[in-house]
């Protein structure tokens, strides 16, 4: 019996180190990847790289067009998806609690959240590109990505609203506020931190996404800077994909340099989101 306990204790300790090793494995892989990228790509990051159009020669190529394309996409997607997503979230959380329509919509959203991104590409190819005739434009791309990130925004809106204490609502009702006034002037401001976090994470997801855009045909060799939502476009991840599929070493180096820029954008957005979340969580613990 004593012996048995030795074994259990031994197992307990072994698992402790194994679990730690797994955790560190995740972090180590992350660091190795990042270091590798920096070593390979940092040297290529100069002004020429940021300010040049794509070219047949790797050393003359740059990311100007796809960086601007990504910024366009980011803004347009936010404009389309944020109001839609927040409104849906409010409806589901505040109005639709009990009825059948709401629970149907809810199953729907949970399903959409799990649909592979490339399927959204197929949807967009048919609806936006062909039927609505938007072509391979920035608008078509942003609409596609908006649908893709809509479930993320809706879910985080609901979570943020859920975290607002009941007392705030009741105070507003007691003063004669209508439902919408209460939501508009009390609930939403109180939920803004959580809302913002969700929105930033969703947009960051959209910026890194490429599969659905490839399907709608956004892998163009573009040499003009997009100036309106109806223009053709390229985005960072697609440019990276394009460069990765070329055999010349110079293009691979370009790809790594572009990856650094893309990761920087992603990390800044995620860092901001985590920071906002922490600050907000502290605040709502009255």
């Amino acid at each position, binding site marked *: 019996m004593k012996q048995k306990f030795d074994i*259990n204790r031994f197992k307990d300790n072994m698992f402790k180190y194994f679990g730690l090793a797994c955790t560190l494995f995740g972090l180590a892989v992350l660091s190795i990847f990042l270091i590798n990228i920096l070593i390979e790509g940092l040297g290529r990051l100069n002004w020429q790289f940021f300010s040049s159009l794509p070219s047949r020669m790797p050393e003359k190529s740059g990311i100007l067009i796809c960086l601007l394309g990504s910024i366009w996409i980011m803004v347009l997607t936010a404009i389309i998806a944020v109001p839609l997503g927040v409104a849906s979230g409010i409806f589901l959380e505040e109005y639709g609690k009990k009825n059948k329509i709401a629970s149907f919509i809810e199953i729907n959203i949970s399903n959409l959240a799990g649909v592979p991104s490339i399927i959204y590409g197929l949807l967009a190819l048919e609806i936006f590109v062909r039927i609505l005739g938007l072509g391979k434009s920035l608008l078509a791309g942003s609409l596609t990505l908006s649908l893709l990130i809509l479930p993320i925004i809706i879910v985080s809106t609901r979570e943020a609203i859920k975290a607002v204490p009941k007392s705030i609502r009741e105070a507003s009702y007691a003063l004669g506020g209508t439902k919408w006034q209460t939501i508009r002037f009390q609930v939403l401001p109180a939920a803004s931190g959580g809302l913002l976090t969700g929105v930033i994470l969703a947009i960051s997801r959209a910026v890194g996404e490429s599969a659905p855009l490839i399907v709608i045909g956004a892998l163009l060799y573009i040499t003009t800077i997009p100036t309106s939502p109806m223009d053709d476009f390229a985005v960072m991840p697609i440019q990276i994909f394009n460069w990765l599929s070329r055999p010349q070493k110079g293009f691979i180096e370009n790809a790594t340099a572009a990856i650094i820029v893309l990761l920087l954008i992603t990390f800044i957005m995620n860092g901001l989101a985590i920071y906002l979340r922490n600050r907000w969580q502290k605040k709502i613990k009255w």
Partner: protein
Amino acid sequence: MAKLDAEKVNVYYGDHHIIKDVNLSIQENTVTAFIGPSGCGKSTFLRLLNRMNDYIENFKKTGDILIDGGDIYDKKVRVEDLRKRVGMVFQKPNPFPKSIYENVVYGLRIQGIKDKSKLDAVVENSLKKVALWGEVKDKLQQSALALSGGQQQRLCIARTLAVEPTIILMDEPASALDPISSAKIEDLISELKENFTIIIVTHNMQQASRVSDKTAFFYLGELVEFGDTDQIFTKPVKELTQNYITGRFG
């Protein structure tokens, strides 16, 4: 020799000084009640005795706690072995979401005991001791969560008895129960006293006076007074104790 000895025990959670210089000695096969206003450190002190506070961050203890003369915080002591000797019953019944049978044999299973006839015997024995056998013997494989609150708490006590501890710690074991279930637990405690040393935290003064031989009154982390239950409830030495048991605060 005392069954349990606390010598100059202090507990800190971070900067908070929770238990202050407590000395206490408990004899074998007695029931000791810890009373005192909420937040005074009764649970914290009780959980020191089976080292349940070990995993709490910022927890720090000074002083010694001896059981059967041995320091339970000694490096050589395995906390798992200690908890086998010092069982614990919690405030809210907390059966595992498993069958009644599996709940009772949990402690034996984790020791690697597989012998079915032995396990069966322990189940019957333990459930009989808590007067639950008659009620559940035909549904041992059913979920423990289907039992009533009072039955669940008796099951939790049976589960503790199955491991054959010598000391049983109870943290307000009847406070979440209805009066009838609560009375059953009190009866049970009086019976168990024959074979076990029992320490019970309670906020119910009548309960303390009914079930315990000794009473310890805690206030703001200090052990204000400790003595025979009769004496504490009829002629306490300290004014603070007097005020508390007559309900002037707390």
